[in-house]
């Protein structure tokens, strides 16, 4: 039995890929652990730090923003780095970063930054998982169809957490043609524009 803290690093209050990944990960980690979660928007450093009390593992799950950590999460990590050790010096930190581009490998730097956070805070780093095409996570159940590969890697990752194993980062993305993902993305942007009363050419506005 482990106590596991899941940190949702997405600023979105609902329907984030990070939230979906947290739910899926907890299912895989199984019913033998105890789970708590925290968001990172509108949370103070003190509230954030308290969440670490007595947990064995913390999993930071977040979207890739400008090749790094979103500012809402970054601010909390920055403010907590000197005190975390006093609250919990034994916690092992794992991280999942998901991104908009297709390749999961593009999350490599953001995961390294979480590792650097661990080094700065003096706590143990476990492993990172980078997931590409994060917007596709709702198209099928994780582990099925185009999300088969992501399901398999999430499974490996969750097994490592359960065993408290530290390992090299994993990178994954849907088993789906990149070109179709690109075309689907373009169709979505155009659809959103229309829903907002904009013409396609308005999306190209220069300021």
């Amino acid at each position, binding site marked *: 039995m482990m106590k596991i803290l899941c940190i949702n690093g*997405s*600023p*979105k209050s609902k329907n*984030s890929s990070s939230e979906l990944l947290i739910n899926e990960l907890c299912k895989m980690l199984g019913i033998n652990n105890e789970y708590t979660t925290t968001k990172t*928007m509108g949370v103070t450093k003190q509230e954030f730090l308290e969440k670490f009390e007595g947990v064995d593992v913390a999993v930071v799950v977040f*979207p890739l*923003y*400008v*090749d*790094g*950590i*979103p*500012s*809402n999460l*970054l*601010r909390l*990590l*920055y403010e907590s780095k000197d005190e975390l050790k006093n609250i919990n010096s034994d916690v092992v930190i794992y991280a999942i970063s998901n991104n908009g*581009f*297709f*390749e999961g490998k*593009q999350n490599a*730097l953001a995961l*390294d*930054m*979480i590792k*650097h*956070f661990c*080094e*700065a805070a003096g706590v143990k780093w476990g492993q990172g998982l980078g997931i590409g095409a994060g917007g596709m996570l709702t198209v099928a159940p994780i582990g099925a169809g185009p999300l088969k590969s992501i399901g398999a890697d999430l499974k490996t990752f969750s097994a490592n957490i359960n065993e408290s194993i530290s390992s090299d980062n994993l990178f994954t993305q849907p088993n789906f043609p*990149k070109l179709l993902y*690109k075309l689907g*993305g*373009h169709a979505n*942007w155009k659809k*959103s*524009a229309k829903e*907002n009363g*904009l013409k396609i050419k*308005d*999306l*190209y*506005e*220069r*300021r």
Partner: protein
Amino acid sequence: MVKTLVLQDINLSGLDLDKDKYIIFKQSQSVKPCVGCFGCWVKTPGKCVIKDSDSDFAVKMPHVEEVIIISELVFGGLSPNVKAVLDRSIGFILPFFCKVNGEMHHKQRYDKRPNLKYMLYGEKMPEAEKVTAQKLIKANATNLGADKFSVEFYNSTAELLEDLKQ
């Protein structure tokens, strides 16, 4: 005339920088974070929907030759307040995808794009963090369509300011 837009997390008021050359961006004390709505692509294309002056950075970028980012080196990246401005500036690029060196990236909104220079400081900067920062600026330059980019590290803000004076 070369115009340089400076995003920073230190006080530059003591420096007598040439106003014709430098535009110092003064963001809020605590910049509101991006909320992940993509409004800067599909509602008010090119600019963050949050109505405060921190949304202006993306609109200034296409009108300068160079962007300098002065920041504490934090976990191999930028400091939170500077990062918040950048997160809210992705309207500078288009939502549409294209391929760059075999990888997926975004198409550029503007034909003319500034070069990027990062001036990063810290007292005991771990080598591993510097390596990450070097990779970061390369990745940022690719996404922001900057032709040229460079990064410098400084052991103190005093050292950094000295360099900026020259």
